[in-house]
């Protein structure tokens, strides 16, 4: 699979998507990408080829729920909402992310 330049670290995509849905409420896939770009000040770019499989897998796992709805521009889109299970998952991923980063930071500082 061809890699994009600003590829997101493995395993963090889920965290980003869950976090996005938790703060912004129901969104369609395009809006999720847009939010992540904007919120990261264009540092992070989610690749479409990974986003949708990730979303659908989260749906299968019951972390998000998908529903067809209408956008402001009156277009039909599939909206994703966080489920209670998804909230739990988000908390877990946040914690493990914090642990990871603090660990990495310590190693960097040690050097």
């Amino acid at each position, binding site marked *: *699979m*061809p890699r*994009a330049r600003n590829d997101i670290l493995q395993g963090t995509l889920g965290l980003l998507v869950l976090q996005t849905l938790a703060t912004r409420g129901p969104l*369609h*896939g*395009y809006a999720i*990408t847009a939010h992540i770009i904007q919120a990261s000040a264009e540092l992070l770019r989610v*690749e*479409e*080829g990974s986003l*949708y*499989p990730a979303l*659908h*897998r989260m*749906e*299968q796992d019951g972390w998000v729920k998908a*529903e*067809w709805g209408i956008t402001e521009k009156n*277009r*039909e*889109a*599939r909206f994703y909402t966080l489920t209670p299970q998804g909230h739990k998952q988000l908390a877990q991923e946040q914690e493990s992310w914090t642990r990871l980063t603090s660990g990495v930071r310590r190693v960097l500082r040690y050097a």
Partner: protein
Amino acid sequence: MTMLPRFRRLFRIDRGAVDVPVAVADELQFHFDMTIDELLAAGKSREEATREAHRRFGDLEQTRLGLQHIGRVRVTRERRAQWWSGMSQDLRYALRGLRLSPGFTIGVMLTLGLGIGANATMFSIIDPLLFRAPSHLAHPDLVNRVHLATQYQGKEFFRANYSYRTFLDLSRDTHSFADFVGYWPRNLAVGDGTETQERRVTGVSASFWQLFPVRPELGRLFSAQEDKVPFGENVIVVSWPYWQSQLGGRRDVLGQHLHIGKLDYTIIGVAPRDLIGLELTHPMGFVPLTSMATNSFEDRGAGRRYYDSYSMNWLQLVAERKPGVSVAAATADLQQAMIRSLEQKSALQPGSDPIASLKPRAMLSPIQFEAGPNRSTATKVGTWLVGVALLVLVIACANVGNLLLARALRRRREIALRLALGVTRGRLLAQLLTESLLLATLGAGFGLLLASWGGSVVRHTLTPDAEAGGVFSDPRMLAFAALTMLVAALLCGVAPAVMVLRADLAGALKSGSREGGYHRSRLRVGLLVVQGALSVVLLVGAALFVSSLRQVRAQPLGYDADKVTYVEQNLRGTALTDDQRYLLLDRLVQRAQELPGVVAASRTTSVPFYMDWGEPLFVPGIDSVSKRGDFVLQAVTGGYFRTMGTRIVQGRALSDADRAGTEMVMVVSQSMARALWPGENPIGKCVKIAADTLPCRGVVGVAEDIKRGSLSDDPGLMYYVPILQYPVGAFGIFVRTSAPATETADGIRRALQAEMPGNAYLTAQPLADLIAPEMRSWELGATMFTVFGGLALLVASIGLYSVIAYTVAQRRQELGVRVALGASVRSVLQLVVGDAMRMMAIAVALGIAGALLAARWVAPLLFHTSPRDPLILGGVAAALLLVGLAASFAPAWRAAHIDPATALRSE
């Protein structure tokens, strides 16, 4: 994209997996469009924007496929979850329904349990006889028994026993077989002194262990080197049950010695627990076939030894085809080798029948002996009983179907309401079937309990030799019960289901249970008639078998089987000359006569249903005596006729005064007298035994006919000579006691055993035991048909009662009006009972027709009983009508005494 899928999506109407690709495409398309919009807004041209969007997306096709896969998995999972939740809902609903009507539930459970139990019982008996391959067989599909069909006097006979030489010929001259196995099960004395007991030992060729490639529980198996002609090694692989019960399951048994027959064997191994071999029960052990031959046959000189003679047919053959060789090809190969072997035999024995006249035909039959050409009467009766059990199940299902239908009718309004509220017929059907499945499961559990108990009883009568397996531990048995259960559930559930599918919504909703309730369901009447008709068929069967059994028992045997014991001597290697053996038997007769309770005793040569002795006969004036029948010689001492209770109808009996040197005499049976000298006085006629050149033997008496080989059509051609004038066959004696032989046989054996020299020992069998197997098939047929027929009748009469009672309850109002308008008790009784009797009359007519149709096939199993006996048919018809009358009378009586006021006021 049309409007329709969007519309559907908006309202979240899921069409399942079909929609997945569309949804995926739509979602991606949306993203794509949004990206392009964004790029256009940033001032790119449409062309550039499209290219950039494509670049950002990467491999679109792969993503699409990935998403579709995920989607399909999700849909399947959801659907499964839905199905399970529906199922558990139905189950809870059904359980609640059943708990609410415990009487109904228990009734149905018992009815179905009887039906399923009857089938499970019969299956457990028939399965090992006809279907199940012996355990540990490496390639069950490639293994066959070898049969040889030959023609004799226009009839075809099937042989399963061969000489060792034929075994060698066939193994050598065929190329289609990977393995040829010869085996011979035989009862031999095992052990020493008081521990001695006759047990079945099976001699098998070493190739047996290729057919059954087992790992012994202990020790080792024997090899071809130990199964060598002429003398095999005296080694034994004991069976697991023998090891457990007689050797204490100890692990140090290897190397121990066992005295078996006349040889001393060394235990080299213990067979695995479930290795039974080629028969139905465990032998005590397996020994090399050649060692078995040494143990059993004397060396009688060149050409008459077991391995160079064609005339000793003692072993059975089993062959395993090479993989890929068809039965037809292997049979052709076997046929060619068999003919060569028969030609060899003819060359060695010039006197034998010409091969062409025998029309020999080699056959590869199923490994299950009973599935081959020589199936026993027990198996035939058993197969019939399988059919009978199926009928019982059908009757049970018809009855349960009827009860379920009544329930469904009572719930008509509820069902109609649910249909009107949008519950699909499919869902409703699923619910009804869940209920009947649940009932059938309960029934199956009860049925298996019945089978585990009933099975052992029936098996004991039908196949006492077969080994019993646990009903609950046998996967085939459980699979069968599950299958029967499913069939039963479907059969029972079908009637109410049909009703639901045809339900007339509006009608059922409008009417209260009052008006809508009463309509005579044609289906219910049909089910009732089917039950009645099948009961008639079974009862006719029962009556036919009972009558057969009575006829068999009433047969004059020509001797008192109940009071006579046959005592046989077994020398077990103790070397005695013929004269010594005769003297020993005379001493046994002498000693027996002195025992308390013994009335008389005699030496004997032939034993009814056990063994016959024949010699060529020559009668002046008759060309070929053998063409007039198969005459059996009985050489006896003076007390014979008194011992057996065989009557002398003319002339005199033999006595101890008839000895060597006195006048040569004989007694003939009535049939023999008729066969040889029709219309003449047989007394004084001349018969020569063994050779035409010998002097005449004069007939001095005529004895009544006896049954010796068949209860049904025994020719009864028997002649008696004083054993002192014709010393043959020194095997045993008959002893008559005043008490039944079953009580005295063992005491006699013990008392006489003291006379036996060396290792020689005696066995004692009541004569009745020898005849019992002949009666067995009729006994079983009579018992089982009666039990099943009685069950069927019981179930049918309960069914009739419930239908009539139900109808009466439904017609309460109408009947109340009739009574109010002055209908007499008598006329109401007539009305209700007449209804029932009409149904029963139809059932009886159909049942009798069915019985007449089956007559042709059942006739060969009957004994002196016509399957069309008008007395039996009439009797059964009358019985069924009577039962119908009884079952309908109580509800009719109630109907006739309805208080019109309450009936009209109610509801």
